[in-house]
């Protein structure tokens, strides 16, 4: 019979139409973001930052604008740290490059602004550390008791990172 296949297909659509909805009702219901989510804003732990500039060097698109100066002790410090988010790919390479794990992504996703001048994020003015942070690029925590190593042997090097491999625990 012509149309049998169409009727069969319609049966499927009717069945699916009355099945539970999968869509999230967004403004009332906030989406569930994975802990490693990347996107949104950046956060900077200013105390931990050593002003090495590796994040800016890792960036593929020159998103990070930094300026450094030296204080009286000849120590480098940051006078400008702006994430020009309009160019950002959210590849997370800057977060991975940070040797002190002080640059983070946050789990904010409502980042729309009215003015294009508000898109770049000045991390020195607002370091965003009070926000919920993404665990993307988190390195496995260092072993708690750090014994003074008598000699660095290759075997000890291998044994040291005996940690959960996900890294976030």
């Amino acid at each position, binding site marked *: 019979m012509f149309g049998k*296949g*169409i009727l*069969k*297909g319609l049966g499927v*659509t009717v069945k*699916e139409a009355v099945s539970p909805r999968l869509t999230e009702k967004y403004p009332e219901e906030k989406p569930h973001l*994975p802990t490693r989510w990347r*996107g949104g804003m950046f956060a900077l732990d200013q105390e931990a930052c050593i002003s090495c500039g590796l994040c800016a060097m*890792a960036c593929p698109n020159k998103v990070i604008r930094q300026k450094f100066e030296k204080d009286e002790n000849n120590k480098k410090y940051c006078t400008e740290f702006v994430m020009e988010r309009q160019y950002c790919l959210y590849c997370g390479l800057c977060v991975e490059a940070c040797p002190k794990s002080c640059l983070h992504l946050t789990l904010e996703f409502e980042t729309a602004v009215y003015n294009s001048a508000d898109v770049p994020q000045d991390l020195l003015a607002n370091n965003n550390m009070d926000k919920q942070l993404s665990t993307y690029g988190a390195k496995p925590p260092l072993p708690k008791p750090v014994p003074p190593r008598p000699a660095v042997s290759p075997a000890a090097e291998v044994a040291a990172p005996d940690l959960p491999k*996900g890294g976030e625990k």
Partner: protein
Amino acid sequence: MNTETNKQGRYSEVYQLNFGPQHPSTHGVLHMLVEMDGETCIGVDTKIGYLHRGMEKLLESRTYLQGLPYTDRLDYLAGVNNNLPYVLAVEKLLGVEVPARASLLRMLTCEIMRLASYMVGVGIYIMDLGAVSGVFYPFQEREYALDCMSALCGARMTQSYIRYGGVQADINEEFDVAYQKLVAETPRFIEMYHKLVDENEIFLRRTKGIGVISAEDAMDYALTGPNLRASGVDYDLRRDAPYCLYDRFKIEVPVLTAGDCYARYVQRMLEVEKIFQLIKEIYAALKEEPAGEIMAKIPKVLKPAAGEAYAQTENPKGIMGCLVASEGKLNPLRVHFRRPSFDNIAIFEKIMPGHKVADLVSIIASFDIVLGEIDG
């Protein structure tokens, strides 16, 4: 100019029809200059380049690691799969040995994204033929695959998860939860979709016998991927030239012989079942693999030795190859991609003449092309 009178005694002239670039059924911005005689196509000139971003030059102007996120944007429906050929080629230059666990993670993510890409391919195909509800269910299914990826590396589509010498992160509990959801939902989806589409008379009439490609033509025009296998050529790189650890697994490759638009749909649906099977096998192997390193020891600053390396992988759209030439500097001297969609559309000029306009839509949709990859 053709001025013969037709049956109604009217003159018919050959005219040119601009098909695309702004047309939803061209899967982006494919432009075809179609010569028409009445309603019949007599010649096709495919014009590309509307989405050209200079991808190869972008990669050449950046360091090796900085270039990696850009490869995701080639075939943006399967980001991880595009990382792999570039990384494999650079690893050949570096001469690093990838840990087994990292190789398994690479394969697992590639297969999950292959599943996701097929979902889009099939769904958009059905939608282009007029069945709009046919696109919703594959997209729901794809969402489970993308949830796995975002739990693993934080991004849904442009993951850039693979790194030189390994992968970016190991699996966590969140991934396991998302993976169980994917495993639970896929069989139900496959059964439901077969019910929805397979016997639909409109679909059958619009696809059976349309755009037939013989095995010889398919090989002559260098078709790859499911489009090649639907024409009766049994070739899959995962089985015939294994990379990563695909040789550990038994890869079953379905092959059809009809070579028409319907065969290309059936081919994809058959492959979805095999991919799903393979995902489960790889995941089981990954769980058995002892927890260990996911990154090989590679230098922080990558300066591969001078020379050339070529690597190719089986991507959802076909065989993706990558040539990397190095001078021993921080950035590559030359990067070139063999993009499967780009090579697949060359056959349009051969198979399209003789078909009606509506059939052209069917042919384009059945090829599952991605313009990000074609234009590069």
